Each structure stands twice: as C-alpha cells, then as structure tokens.
C-alpha cells in the first residue's frame, strides 16, 4: 500500500468525500432542498443551518450535497455513455482495420474540431436547457476521445502473439475482442474515463452557470455561483463553497487519473 502514488491518495480522498456527500443526500439532507423560507435568508452558520442559508433562505449544505449528486450523476451517465459508445467504436475500428478504421478515426478527428463547451452550448440552445440534454451533450463530446484511445491500444493488442495464436485457432473477431483485447485495454480506458470525469464536471458547471444545464429548483454548483454573483456586495460568502466543491471534485478526479495512470504504467514520470 505504501507504494501507491501520493496523487492516488489525495485524489481518492477528495472524490471519496464528495461522492459520500452525494450518496448521503439520497437518503438524508439537513433540510429539504426546494424549501424557500425568505424570513430565514442570509443566516450565518448555526446548529440548524450548518453552513448558513442563501438569498431565499435555502440551506447551503443541502444545496451543496444535492448539487454534488446532480454533478456526479451527469458526469457518470455522460462519461459512461460516451465511453461505452466510443470504446465500442474504437474496438470495432481496431478489429476491422482498413476502411472501417479509416472512417471511424476520420469521424473522431472531425468531432475534435468542435470545442466541447461550444458543442454543449449548441445542443442546449437547440433542444432547450435540461438535465438530460446536458448529459447527451457531454456524452457526445466524450465519444471521439474514447474512440482514439481504445482504437490505438486495441491495434497494439491485435499484433500480439497470443492474438495471432487465437486467430490461428479460428476464433472470431468478436471472441478475440471480448477475451483478449478488451481486458488488455481496460486499464487505459478506465484512466481516460477518470480524467474525462473531471472535464465533464467542469463543463456541467459552466453550462449550469450559464443557465443551460440543471434547471431550478434542482440545485447545482454552477447555478449557485451565478445566483451568488448577483449578490456579491450583499452576501459574498455564498460564492465560496460551491466553487470549492467544483475545484475539489475536478482536482480529485485529475489526481486520481494521474495516480491510476502511474499505477498502470510505472515507467511514466510520476505525475503530481
């Protein structure tokens, strides 16, 4: 255990705390997240409101916890969907080679031309802002990333002797992909997913900040910040915590990804 990279520990701890808060919010929150009590607004931290209340008297801790749940859910579903689809396409391209590979990789290259945030904004503009559309937009952006990573790694596996042996014993492409290629590229795909998780959280936060992501009354860190920005002179404290949550989550996933990568490939320089 002592040989595990430091970044893995720090990243794991940060992600662990946020994920725990999100999980707890499923069964318990200090207050109801949608309850508005104007008479209780701008309360300082107290036994009743551990982190105080916002401009509508909503409990800040509750908002942060449910915000964590919304952020992580969007990132999990989006990266999961995009990763699964992208990896499947990448595996297909790696197995078939030739024209299939050429077409899949060209499409991935083309998708890269679209900046992630711009694409998400465009989808939100066309289909209206919502939780689901944020997921779709972020999932879509993730597909080409996974196509590239999985195709490049799959091609290397296809050249190994044990794959040649499997082919010689007349095993089909699907069986070889399932039994040999996928297990061998899984580590790289997982590292990529961890790092993309961080990106997904940032994009979700930016979309919600612009009002194009999670819609009220569902809390989100991004929207908490855009609301707090209008109250800078009145209640500057409201701008601090949601931002810290975003930073902690993104930093956590980045460090976790770095640590996992070091673990998967010890020859790389230790990332910090």
């Amino acid at each position, binding site marked *: 255990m002592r040989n595990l990279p430091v970044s893995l520990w720090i990243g794991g701890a940060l992600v662990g705390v946020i994920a725990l808060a999100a999980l707890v919010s499923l069964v318990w929150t200090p207050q109801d997240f949608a309850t508005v009590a104007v008479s209780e607004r701008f309360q300082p931290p107290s036994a009743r409101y551990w982190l105080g209340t916002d401009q509508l008297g909503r409990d800040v801790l509750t908002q942060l916890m449910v915000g964590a749940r919304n952020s992580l859910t969007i990132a999990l579903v989006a990266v999961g969907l995009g990763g699964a689809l992208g990896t499947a396409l990448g595996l297909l391209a790696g197995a078939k080679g030739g024209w299939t590979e050429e077409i899949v990789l060209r499409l991935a290259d*083309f998708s890269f031309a679209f900046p992630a945030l711009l694409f998400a904004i465009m989808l939100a503009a066309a289909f209206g802002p919502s939780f689901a559309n944020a997921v779709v937009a972020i999932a879509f952006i993730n597909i080409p990333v996974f196509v590239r990573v999985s195709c490049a790694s799959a091609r290397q596996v296809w050249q190994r002797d044990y794959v040649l042996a499997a082919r010689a014993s007349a095993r089909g492409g699907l069986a070889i992909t399932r039994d040999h290629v996928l297990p061998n590229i899984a580590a790289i795909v997982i590292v990529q997913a961890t790092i993309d998780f961080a990106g997904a959280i940032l994009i979700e*936060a930016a979309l919600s900040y612009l009002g194009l992501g999670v819609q009220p009354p569902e809390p989100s860190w991004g929207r908490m910040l855009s609301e707090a920005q209008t109250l800078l002179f009145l209640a500057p404290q409201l701008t601090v915590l949601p931002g810290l949550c975003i930073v902690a989550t*993104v930093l956590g996933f980045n460090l976790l990804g770095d640590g996992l990568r070091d673990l998967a490939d010890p020859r790389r320089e230790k990332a910090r």
Partner: protein
Amino acid sequence: MPFLLRRLAGLVATLTGISLVVFAVMNVLPGDPALTILGLDSTEDARAALSAQLGLDQPVWARYLDWLGGILQSDFGTSYAYRVPVTELILERLPLTLTLGLLASILTIALATALGVFAAARHGKAGDWVTMILSQLGIAIPAFWLSILLVLLFAVTLRVLPSGGFPGWAEPLEALKSLVLPVTALVLVQASVLARVTRASVLEVAKLDYARTARALGLSPRRVMWGHVLPNALVPMVTVAGMQLAGLITGTIVIENVFFLPGLGRLMFQAINNRDLYTVQALVLLFASIVVIVNFLVDMIYLLIDPRLREGRS
C-alpha cells in the same frame, strides 16, 4: 506544394462538415420559429407568411445551400430578435472578442513558457513543486469562479477595477481596465495546462546528448535553456498551445457573460435566450471555424519548426 494543397482541401472539408452539423442541429429545433417570433396570439396566416418570407417552407437541403451561399458572401441572414443583419451584429462585437482573445492568447503563451521553464530549471526543488501544485489547481478551477473571486477582491473589496461592463473604445484606458480581470481569469486557467506541458517537454529535451554537450562546453545554464533546449522542446508545446487556444476561444463565451462584456460570446448567450436561430447558428459556426482555422495554422507552424514532419506525413 501538393502537400499544402492537400491540407487546404482537408481544411475546406472540415469547415463544410461543421457547417452541415451546425445546420442540422439548429434546424431540428422543436417548435415553429415563426410562432416564436410572432407570439402565441398570432394568426395562422401571419405565421405562414413569415415562414415563407424566412424560406422555412423550402426543403431542408435548399435552405442549407441558401444559408451556405449567403455566408460565402458574408451574409448570415437576419436576426429575429434585433431585426438587423446578423453580420452587422457580429461586426459590432467582433473587436471586443478579438481583443480579449488575442490579449489572453499572447499572455497565456508567455506566462506558460516562463512558468514551465522556471519549473524545469528547478526540477525537483521547491520552485518546481510550487509551480506544479499551483498549475494543478489552475486546471481544476472553473474560469467563471476564478472571475467571481477576482471581482470580489479587485472590484468589491479593493475597488481598483470595474466588476463588469464595457465603456466602449472611445475611452481606451477605461476599456483596457475593464479587460484586465477577464483576461487574467482566462490566462491563469489556460496557462496552467500549457505550463505543465512546457515543463515536461523541456525536461525531456534537457536529458538529450546535445544538451549535455552544450553544458559540457561550459555554456551558461541560461544559454543552454534558451538557445538549445527550449527551441527543441517547442513541438509538443505548440500542439498543446493549439488546443489551449481552442479552449480560450470558447472560454471567452463564458467569460464575456461573467463580466457582461458586449462581445460575440454575450451575443450568443442572448441569442440563445431569445431563440434567435440565425444568430446562434452563425455564431456557433463562427466560433467552430475559428477553432478549426487556428488549429490549421498551428499545424502549419508545426511544419515550420520541425521540417522532418513534412516528409513523415506526406
């Protein structure tokens, strides 16, 4: 020359593809644009007339070709919300976004190079660690939150800079002052990634034989770094810088909205809220094209600094 031609053909193909995607996505908009413009109490006839006027009764491919043909003559259609040509709206706001983007790009590259070289020169020492920890934080901070914190410090508490808005170019000094915080927020976030790449790339090159030879010849560390190591470390830096510039361009969309700067990003956001189809469509296409063209230019610079790639790729 055939090489350059092939790259140019690729650029045109990508741009055409982007125009197709943007048009396809924006034209599956649920709802009738005529209804959006005229409101719920409009008559069926009025909506039909407006649809015809906007060409919405045409088949989709005809509308696409019409749109593309217009763009090639710098005609982006007419804005529903403002009732003026979209081109006019864009030209009015372009200088601000361009200034913001260019200032941020130049400063990002300068800061990232300086930090990367600084960290690499102190490899494993305190200066290196501090720079790397700060850059790791910089990557994790959303630019809009950093902006809010900067406003809190410099506008609300110290009252030395404006918290947002733009006074116009008639007062150049005030105009620049209002750009200080937006540019700072963009640069600090974007420079973080680039500084890490610069450091890694410089460290990689510094290990090579010719760098050792240069040191053995008694050249000063400074001359070895700037004369021998850095020029050879440029290739990965330029690649990442290209991606960073793309991030910067979309970053301006968010930042302009944080600081209420009347640029293209703010216009896009307002157009989305007004469901101003042509304006959104034009701006998405414009931003995506800028990114593609910047990356194309970066690729060209790439070939300029490393001639080996020319043969390698063709």
